[in-house]
């Protein structure tokens, strides 16, 4: 399973802070993004960053491993 987390405004639009996605062999971040975007289009209007296992990720072609933690995030507003 892939653990997908949402925070702040994205979590509000998704209506949840965490969902589990079934892992599929060969899955890439882009595939997961597309799947989530299809399920939560309003939330993904504001998604602009992705993190996998606690690290910023820019290459959406990266493969996703089973048991990964993936976070789709909007622009930050801390400080």
């Amino acid at each position, binding site marked *: 399973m892939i653990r997908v*987390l949402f*925070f*702040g*405004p994205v*979590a*509000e639009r998704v209506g949840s802070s965490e969902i589990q996605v079934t892992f599929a062999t060969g899955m890439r971040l882009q595939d997961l993004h597309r799947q989530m975007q299809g399920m939560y289009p309003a939330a993904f209007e*504001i998604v602009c*960053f992705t*993190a996998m296992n*606690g*690290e*910023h990720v820019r290459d959406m072609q990266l493969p996703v491993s089973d048991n990964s933690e993936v*976070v789709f*995030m*909007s*622009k*930050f*507003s*801390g*400080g």
Partner: protein
Amino acid sequence: MNGRTTKAEVRIQQEDFSQDEEISALRASSKRMGGIATFIGCARDFSEGRSVAKISFDAYGSMAEAEMKKLRAEAIARFTLLDARIVHRVGVVGAGEQIVFIAAGAEHRAPALQACHWLIDELKLRVPIWKKEITPEGESWVTSHP
């Protein structure tokens, strides 16, 4: 034992912080420190033309703390700091209360001031924390970071 507990240099916490305690901890790290620059971010009671009663912060805690630790290490290397501290609150913060504390200590004032400025700018860009303003008219997430 002097009864004091040493707090980590980088922290995310719900409770308020004491700038005096943070500066004392920073100064205790080196007697070579000739300049200390600090920044405190506070919750404003007015934003976008309306009153703000409280600000609620959500964070991807583990990554936010890891990114803040990276920022501290980068600042120390980049500006040749002797030490630096970063504290950010999460949860609900009332108008007028403190949100974030940054301190940079160096042998001289210029790198301390430059590092402090750099740290708050980078924190806003890189650390996964989100703020929601709670107003009498309702709540709204803040998307910009001027």
